[in-house]
């Protein structure tokens, strides 16, 4: 069972209290973008076997959105952080490196 800590209200709970919101840090493309950029924004996903950055909402709690870094194989959560960022914070990246040396994710690693 997946257990997450909401960084907004501090509550730790199991997954049924949260709603998954898909991959985080997806770059938004709008009018004027090429077809390929728009396709990638809407459909293309990292879908990694390993470290994954993702969006969650504390649906049955404070109701706020946040981000999480999680391993898709073991469900280990490396940390949760504010949704008001476009890249994962340094502390989160360091926590991942400590456990998964050599991990990669787009240009963040």
């Amino acid at each position, binding site marked *: 069972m997946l257990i997450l800590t909401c960084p907004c209200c501090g509550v730790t709970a199991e*997954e049924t209290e949260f709603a998954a919101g898909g991959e985080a840090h997806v770059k938004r493309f709008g009018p004027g973008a090429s*077809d390929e950029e728009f*396709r990638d924004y809407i459909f293309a996903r990292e*879908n990694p076997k390993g470290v994954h950055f993702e969006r969650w909402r504390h649906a049955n709690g404070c109701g706020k959105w946040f981000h999480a870094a999680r391993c*898709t194989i073991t469900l280990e959560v490396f940390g949760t952080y504010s949704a008001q960022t476009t890249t994962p914070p340094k502390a989160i990246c360091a926590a991942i490196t400590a456990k998964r040396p050599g991990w990669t994710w787009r240009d963040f690693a």
Partner: protein
Amino acid sequence: MKRYSAFAVAREALSYHTGWGRAWRAPEPKSRYDVVIVGAGGHGLATAYYLGKNFGITNVAVLEKGWLGGGNTGRNTTIIRSNYLQDSSAAIFEKARALYEGLSQDLNYNVMFSPRGCLMLAQTQSEVRGYQRTAHANALQGVQTEWVGPQRVKELVPIINIDGPRYPVLGGLWQARGGTARHDAVAWGYARACSAMGMDIIQQCEVTGVRREGGKVVGVDTSKGAIDCGKLGMVVAGHSGALAEMAGFRLPIESVALQALVSEPIKPCMDVVVMANTVHGYMSQSDKGEMVIGGGTDSFNNYTQRGSFHHIEHTLAALIETFPMVSRLKMLRQWGGIVDMTGDRSPILSKTPVEGIFINCGWGTGGFKAIPGSGWAFAELMAKGHAPLADDFSLDRFTEGRFIDESVAAGVAH
């Protein structure tokens, strides 16, 4: 390879059935093949089979990191139907269903296809309208389905409770020629037929890298060494993203765990397949008597092959209203498989940005029923560069906005 027949059973009895031999060879890889298929699930094996049968291409290897059929092909609830809404889907799924009817004879291997009929329940007004629309679409596509009322549902499935109270059964979409087949046997039957054509099926051989030269594929790295190839087919379901990454492109796919469970065996009580999409449960009875129950998919992507625990309770709670007798059953086993979900809930059969690499994936929660048709179409695509049944499912539909939207037609798509 020894042909299986009633006569063969009698002949082998004379030597106490010790002379049957292996159903397929277990060779070491050669250094080069014309075609390498990654993934010995149903779709990969069927692709190899029709490459040989329809196009005479037999210098083929099928590489499997685990054991044959150990992916979703050996983990699914084996529902076979072809009552989809969109024409492109109906064409490939109906081709598959039709091929299933003669598959045991074609492969000389009993895949236990059981066309017992498949019933999709309508339990809300929107489902009533949706399935009536599908029934009309199917009539135009030449797929035999029928809208039936609640009384007919009760006749077909005496153990059902049609009165609700929360979700009364308002009718259903009935496909009399749908049903089930034995999942392992489908993989084994294709493997045996491929091996008999001289193809190499290599188990415990994981592909770890894709070698390219000048934008073109030249081979793969594997746990059993490097293997050169002319063409490469990626048919790895939930692991498609990982394979695509090795070849340097991304896919419109996310991988999640989907679960199923079976009950203790009981006496025959239901001789059709029933799907209840609103309450999200579906059920059939196996030949051993177990009730085979399909569960939920996780909402977040993962590779656990297990699935979240709470889905079990959710699935059974939903089934109990419609099938009250389920509340008395003990559940024996639960498992999960990693399914590959696309944005429009339709599969991908396509060329890729790398010349010589073809991909067949995105069958998600509902590709067992498609195995023969998918192999048929994908073999043609790999041999000729295009195929009438596959062309609509190409990757560029996501750039062009040309979706084959099956997500509205069926909330779950098994």
